[in-house]
């Protein structure tokens, strides 16, 4: 199997709050550093990646964040317009057909049409968009919606094709489906945390992804703590009297979290047949480019 960064599309999935956007940004940064033209597509309501690099939101226009590193916010309405115009070609006809009250109803009724056009746009960037005779992007990183919704999102082509077999949209859906099933061109990563609920969800998500034959990418265990104190040191520090009360509690908290990290790493290694990469907890809340860079270094081996 080819390395993750040698593929066309890397999808980053996981439970909400596990750090999907952080990992997406770090994967994209690592890719850009290798000289690959990289695009991050964010499909959730609020975009975050540009902010990590100290840039204003990209919006629906592709923006350069760093050399080789770009991001775009994929929103349903704009994606629909772009997508429909590619198929219909005539702006006037598009307006007549799509921009009226009745069509809005129809568009809402079509199963997951918003997801379809958003995924369609991502697919187009990953496998169709050309520049000077070659594909414009070496790698597209998709920061996918959270677990349940993320799975629905990736399954959209399959669901759609069950209902519709003809027409341009169905043809493109087949293209997407084949990209999403090709381990040479696509990898689906899972992000989780060393906590019970996120770990359980990662296990279920991994199973669901494999059952649907999405090509395996790495499992990222985000926010891990490494043990720093031997049991004896911990015992001494926590019983060191009032002068060591603060330091002792801090050490005790740290070891508790290190123990949870080790425990869930074990559980996940057992249950999830993907390579697991630990991403250390970062002691900062405003994630700047330095934080993303540290994550990128931590995951280098998995790429």
């Amino acid at each position, binding site marked *: 199997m080819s390395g993750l960064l040698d593929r066309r599309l890397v999808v980053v999935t996981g439970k909400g709050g596990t750090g999907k956007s952080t990992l997406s940004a770090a994967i994209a940064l690592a890719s850009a550093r290798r000289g690959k033209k990289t695009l991050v597509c964010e499909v959730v309501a609020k975009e975050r990646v540009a902010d990590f690099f100290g840039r204003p939101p990209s919006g629906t226009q592709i923006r350069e964040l760093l050399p080789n590193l770009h991001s775009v916010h994929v929103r349903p309405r704009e994606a629909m317009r772009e997508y429909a115009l590619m198929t219909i070609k005539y702006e006037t006809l598009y307006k007549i057909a799509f921009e009226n009250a009745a069509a809005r109803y129809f568009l809402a009724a079509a199963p997951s049409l918003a997801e379809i056009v958003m995924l369609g746009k991502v697919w187009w960037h990953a496998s169709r968009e050309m520049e000077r005779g070659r594909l414009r992007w070496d790698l597209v990183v998709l920061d996918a919606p959270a677990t349940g919704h993320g799975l629905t999102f990736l399954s959209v082509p399959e669901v759609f094709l069950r209902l519709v077999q*003809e027409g341009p949209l169905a043809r493109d859906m087949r293209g997407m489906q084949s990209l999403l099933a090709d381990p040479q061109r696509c990898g689906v990563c899972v992000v989780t945390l060393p906590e019970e609920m996120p770990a359980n969800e990662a296990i279920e998500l991994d199973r669901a992804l494999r059952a649907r034959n999405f090509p395996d990418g790495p499992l990222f265990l985000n926010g891990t703590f490494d043990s720093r104190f031997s049991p004896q040191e911990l015992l001494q520090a926590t019983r060191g009297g009032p002068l*060591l009360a603060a*330091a002792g509690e801090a050490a005790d908290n740290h070891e508790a979290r290190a123990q949870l990290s080790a425990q869930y790493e074990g559980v996940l290694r057992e249950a999830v047949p993907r390579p697991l990469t630990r991403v250390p907890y970062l002691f900062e*809340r405003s994630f700047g480019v330095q934080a993303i860079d540290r994550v990128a270094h931590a995951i280098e081996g998995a790429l």
Partner: protein
Amino acid sequence: MNFADAVRGRKILCCVGSGGVGKTTTAAALALRAAMDGKRTLVLTIDPARRLANSLGLKEMGNEETRIEPSLFAQAGLHPRGEMWAMMLDLKHTWDDLVRRQARSAEQAKAILENQLYQTLSTAMAGSIEYMAMEKVYEVYNSGRFELVVLDTPPTSNALDFLHAADRILDVLDNNAMRIVLGPMLRAGKFGFKLLAAPSGLVLRTLARFTGSDFLRDLAGFMMAFEGMYEGFKERAGKVKALLTSREAAFVLVTSPNPHTTQEALFFHQALHKDGIGTAAVIVNRVQRDPRRHGGPDNLPALKEALQLAQIKDTGSPLLSERLCQTLNEQATLADLDRREVERLHQALRGVPLFSVPRLRKDVHDLAGLWQIDRYLSGED
């Protein structure tokens, strides 16, 4: 004020907030507290990952109300005066029940339930889970079997999605709109609408180029089956919304001290406000406690001295004192950041009672853990 005061008299608690902030755990903890206080309580959770099932030691929940075994409470050293029940929302079942209830005849219900598009739409449409969660709360509340219902909402990206999910889905089912779009495919006949084979009319032909005409035919078929039911759905959804926005119900914002989630919590609060709903309480989970509250040395020379006084060898690489100092600093940094964020939330939500639950040493996955959260919420800990 403790949490119980903040929601006194309410019969429905909706826990809302972004994903990963501990909504499910919080909802279960609130239900446990009410059960301990003597209420017959149900926690309704929506969850493919069976989070609540895990946390309460339940294997199967389905769409059935399941009582938490009294023996589980006893094991945790708890003796509730009331009862705690749990239910996991089964999306498809709830939809099917609703269709059966609203259909004018068994034949109509059957036609809808067997329609391929209905099966996809009901489970895949955006907002479907939110809509059915509200529907289920309404049903359970009206059954009169529970004195309190706690709803663990799906991790909706925003409050508007939650409160307006039903409206958006019902727009889709609105037959008037159907007649406008699909009109050219339908002909009014003696027995209602009749389906024509091919799409006609400019709008329809253009749309068909986009989706294929199969889909349009399926859609028209579904709409025909649904004929006459829209008003009933609309009326019921109106009642559901009225209940959730009445004084019977309270919205509890759940968040973590992460700036992104507090931002979303504020957004949620504003969206509720726009709908005329007050936020009854805010719960901030996983707030780092500041180890410096114990006082004592927090810099390297002082820590070295403290180790010496306690006759602890300062060895290892890096030295024990250096590791202790780094660890203390890291956690102090986190505590500062969390404090600042909680303070910011407090300022922005003036007048809304705010409760902090500290980051606990262990994951909360059982009744004892839930009870520990309750103690923080009631100010006992």
